[in-house]
């Protein structure tokens, strides 16, 4: 039995809380804000070319989808000359899949981190994003307790799926940028 599980009786005779609260606050390093400001400035500078780059990437992606140069199909829609690469690729092992999921997860997070302008402005999307973020946090907690690859693999799959959903929600402001009235983007929902 613990001396006092809730700490109530202990506090009345043992004012540890009062002693801890009386400790002087620690002095932060003097250059901490400068470091934060540098990071913010660097991100802002980087963002200046992100939108044009994202547009260029979208155009390229669209062109690739239409032309599909990788499967040898001609534009008239004839049958493919080569079998699908995936047909002969052996199934990846659990460790490979885990590594791939972790890598993909990192890339998704990095993309989301760079997308600070992509905070949903629509109320429902905002709530959905917050909920997804909470769910990702919950999965992270479970991952921290996972002891083996077999335990963590389904969690990493879940994490990636949630991040993909989050990316969809977060990228909506760009997609609807041309329709602010419909999206109600004129005044951000707080």
């Amino acid at each position, binding site marked *: 039995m*613990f001396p006092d599980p809730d*700490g109530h009786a202990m506090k*009345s005779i043992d*004012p540890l809380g009062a002693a801890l609260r009386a*400790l002087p*606050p620690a002095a932060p390093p003097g250059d901490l804000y400068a470091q934060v400001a540098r990071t913010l400035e660097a991100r802002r500078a980087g963002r200046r070319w992100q939108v044009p780059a994202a547009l260029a990437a979208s155009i390229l992606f669209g062109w690739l989808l239409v032309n599909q140069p990788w499967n040898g199909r001609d534009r008239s829609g004839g049958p493919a000359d080569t079998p699908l690469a995936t047909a002969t690729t052996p199934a990846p092992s659990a460790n490979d899949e885990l590594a791939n999921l972790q890598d993909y997860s990192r890339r998704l997070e990095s993309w989301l981190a760079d997308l*600070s302008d992509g905070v949903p402005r629509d109320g429902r999307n905002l709530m959905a994003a917050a909920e997804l973020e909470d769910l990702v946090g919950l999965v992270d907690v479970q991952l921290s307790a996972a002891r083996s690859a077999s335990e963590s693999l389904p969690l990493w799959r879940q994490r990636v799926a949630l991040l993909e959903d989050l990316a969809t929600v977060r990228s909506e402001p760009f997609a609807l940028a041309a329709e602010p009235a419909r999206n109600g983007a004129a005044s*951000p929902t707080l």
Partner: protein
Amino acid sequence: MHLYWPSPGADSVRAKRPDRPGQLHQGPAAQWRKAPDGARASGVRCTHPSRRVATLGHAGASSIAVNSSFCIDIPTRLITRIQRGELGAFEQVYRLFERPAWTLALRMIGNPEDAREVVHDAMLRVFDRARQFRGDSPFWGWVRRIVVNEALMRLRRDRTHVEQAYDETEQAHEADTSTPAPWAWTEARQLESALEALPALTRSVIWLYHVEGHTHPEIAEMTGKSVSFSKSQLARGTARLRELLGTCTPESPCSPTLMATP
């Protein structure tokens, strides 16, 4: 990047801790969590000695006193400016919360290098996420929750911190309450040294409970552990502190090397 941040309004203050100094009436934190925007701060009072006492509730309304150094009332206009992405406004808020954030991170993490990263990342997150703050809880509570989450994330990343925490099933020794608690007369530096000798997660639980005023269920939620884990860390950490400081007397100060022994 970590994606474990609080949903707006997730932070709360202790709702049933009659022994908390300065606490007035109790009421469920959910009362003001759900309060409409105009009354969002109803029932919350800041009582930290370094702050002016700020009664944020309506006169006569029941209120909860909060004794956290984070308890800083931020004007809505300033928050709106941060939400618009104004760096100047962010700097103002950063300056207000830098010291509480640093103190909290340092107490939880234990070393200045990691605490620096925690504060850095947490403050960036405050800026990034400001537009998600909807005002249904105090802004300071939202900021504090981000700092706590960031620090816990850091502790989880290094599994040894989790493993070093006291075993939940291991029982604490009965506290010797016949003698006065050593922290009643221990000097601040000695108490800090004893705190530093505790496992990081145990120290965090003690700090979150005693100083930031979180309940065991809240700590359990934040740490991803059980309520009994939180209680056991508090009890065992307190017992360990008592052991570490037990040999200290005003006439015979503690030896730092003695306290550094786990």
